């Protein structure tokens, strides 16, 4: 029982140790990987995925899913970039991008939390809708020639090689983590995912909580879209295609259970670093990035299968122990 308790306590710790072991392993093959710049770049480059993973983590923690975040990223990127290119002020463009996140989040939240539609199906539908809206908005053309100050923003360094982007995002993640684990309403998210019926019974508003999780997810994805524009410098209508899958994978790698109620935002951001480092690591190991998907798929499947099998084992063992205790209490009495 104690070991189970310990393992559960340090779920994101396991991911962190895995990250360190991974980096150390790559470093042994190719020591140049371990240079501070190279290591820091693993984190710097994960900034978009960190935002996406943390955003969707809100939703996953409540026990739902959102596969439209890639499209939300693309839509927000397209809107922000177009406005900037057309000479809007940064404030207007950024606000418009964030509003994209709010509106899309509200649509998803309404469908899933209020109308009670299975989240995978509903967000699959909105994914098509949002993705199509990118084409409508941009007319299918690329958004190019973004103002240089905006694209330079992504290269701004705060301390040494640490980009300002990652520093700010990290600060936000820590703040969100604090809110989620320390405040009353923050704790609702995990409570709803852990046991929705139980949460209702003690007066936690499950519908509201799920709704808010989708809005937050939308906003985080939209902000990810803005950073994406700045980093890449041009937006295609397919921007962010398939990113939802990688963000979900990042959450799983970071120790978040897809059944909800288990995991943390810190875990999600660690998972995002692992996820986005895979191709960089492959390069340092001398493989082509063609192995990217294969490695990601294997990592994902191995981790979820191990997790599920160990949880099933524990559940079965628990049940057997309880039943055995009942039957054996008689024996104990007989010996008295």
């Amino acid at each position, binding site marked *: 029982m104690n070991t189970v308790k310990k393992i559960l306590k340090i779920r994101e710790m396991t991911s962190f140790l895995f990250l360190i072991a991974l980096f150390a392993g790559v470093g042994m093959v190719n020591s140049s990987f371990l240079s501070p710049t190279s290591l820091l770049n693993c984190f710097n480059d994960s900034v978009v995925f960190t935002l996406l993973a943390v955003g969707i983590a809100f939703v996953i923690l409540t026990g739902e899913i959102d596969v439209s975040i890639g499209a939300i990223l693309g839509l927000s990127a397209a809107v922000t970039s177009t406005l900037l290119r057309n000479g809007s002020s940064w404030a207007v463009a950024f606000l418009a991008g964030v509003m994209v996140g709010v509106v899309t989040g509200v649509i998803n939240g309404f469908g899933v939390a209020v109308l009670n*539609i299975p989240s*995978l*199906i509903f967000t699959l539908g909105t994914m098509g809708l949002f993705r199509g809206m990118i*084409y409508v908005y941009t007319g299918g053309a690329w958004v190019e020639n973004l103002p240089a100050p905006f694209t330079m923003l992504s290269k701004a360094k705060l301390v040494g090689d640490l980009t300002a982007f990652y520093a700010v995002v990290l600060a936000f993640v820590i703040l969100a983590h604090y809110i989620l684990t320390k405040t009353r309403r923050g704790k609702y998210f995990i409570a709803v995912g852990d046991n929705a019926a139980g949460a209702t019974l003690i007066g936690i508003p499950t519908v509201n909580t799920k709704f808010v999780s989708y809005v937050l997810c939308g906003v985080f994805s939209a902000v990810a879209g803005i950073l994406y524009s700045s980093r890449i410098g041009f937006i295609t209508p397919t921007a962010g295609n398939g990113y939802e899958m990688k963000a979900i994978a990042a959450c799983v790698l970071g120790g978040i259970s897809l059944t909800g109620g288990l995991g943390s935002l810190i875990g999600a951001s660690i998972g995002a670093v692992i996820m986005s480092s895979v191709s960089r690591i492959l390069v340092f190991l001398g493989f082509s990035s*063609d192995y990217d*998907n*294969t490695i990601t798929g294997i990592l994902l499947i191995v981790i979820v299968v191990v997790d*599920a*099998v160990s949880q099933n084992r524990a559940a079965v063992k628990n049940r057997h122990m309880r039943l055995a205790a009942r039957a054996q209490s008689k024996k104990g009495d007989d010996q008295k």
Partner: protein
Amino acid sequence: MKNSPLESLKRGVKSWEFALLMILFLEFVIFGAKNSKFLNPNILLGSVNDIISICIISLFVTFVMITGGIDIQAGAIVGFTSIIVGVVWQDGGLNIWAACLIAVIAAALCGALSGFFVAYCNVQPMVVTLGGGFLYSGLALLVAKLSATESYKGISGFPDSFRQISQFKLFGVIPEQVIIFAVLTVIAYLLLHKTKYGRKVFLVGVNPRAAEYSGINSRLVIMSTYVLSGISAAIAGIVLTSYLDTAKSDIGATFTLQIITAVVLGGTLSTGGKGNVIGTALAALVIGILRFGLPLCFKINTQYLDIPVGLLLLIVITARSLAGNSKVVRFMNGVMPRGWGKTAAH
């Protein structure tokens, strides 16, 4: 069973499949009225190549979703089989049909692997097939690397006998793909609705534990549905490769949304236990015709086509959810087609 023909007819008219048929009919009327080219058999039937994959795969993803699962890896398997056919034929030097057989076996194994994790390890189907999607598309890329041909070009120049799959036309009009789809629909229909295996699929989807108590091996049944959907993806991959005369590793990448939409639109309950092959087939056609007709008749850019498909999915599931709400049901009683209320009851 002992219903009078009139009663059966009445029920048929109220069913969801009938509603889909009407939508399909409506599409023909609207598109046909807008642009008479649409009704030209050669043009209409020629469009089949763009939609055939979705039609074939969604038939068997229906099985998966009836057991309460989901399959978002089928698109990756399409690319995987396509590139296997190409590489085994061109670089392996095997007979094209042997290459196809190997591709089908590989796809079945992919399905079996994911199905095993879902059924025997209790991992959520969504996550397993997500990982499977990465894995199989990744493997497809690695297989492509085995080839002497650059992977972005794709392998082409297939023998005529293979190309005949997509070139042959019955009576000079009906493309072979239509026949393949029709045959597969009949097979899927018989398998799901008329065999003992199909009954087990339904029972497992309704209540897997009660199925175990009826002596049904729920896990094996669940796993088998993923094998079936894998095989169907392989068939789609082969047909598509023949049509394009190109084997590429990523030709199925955009199919997921359309497949799931077809299955859900066809009346399959996303929580499992209810579904219908005919519904799925009709829904796949509705989507296919929509994607074909909108650009042809309304000059809508093909890139926008995710919007109507997404909207269609959203409208159907939202309407179902509202129909399941007891207040709305009471209000709408008698207005909705009967099939809706039934599927929405749970």
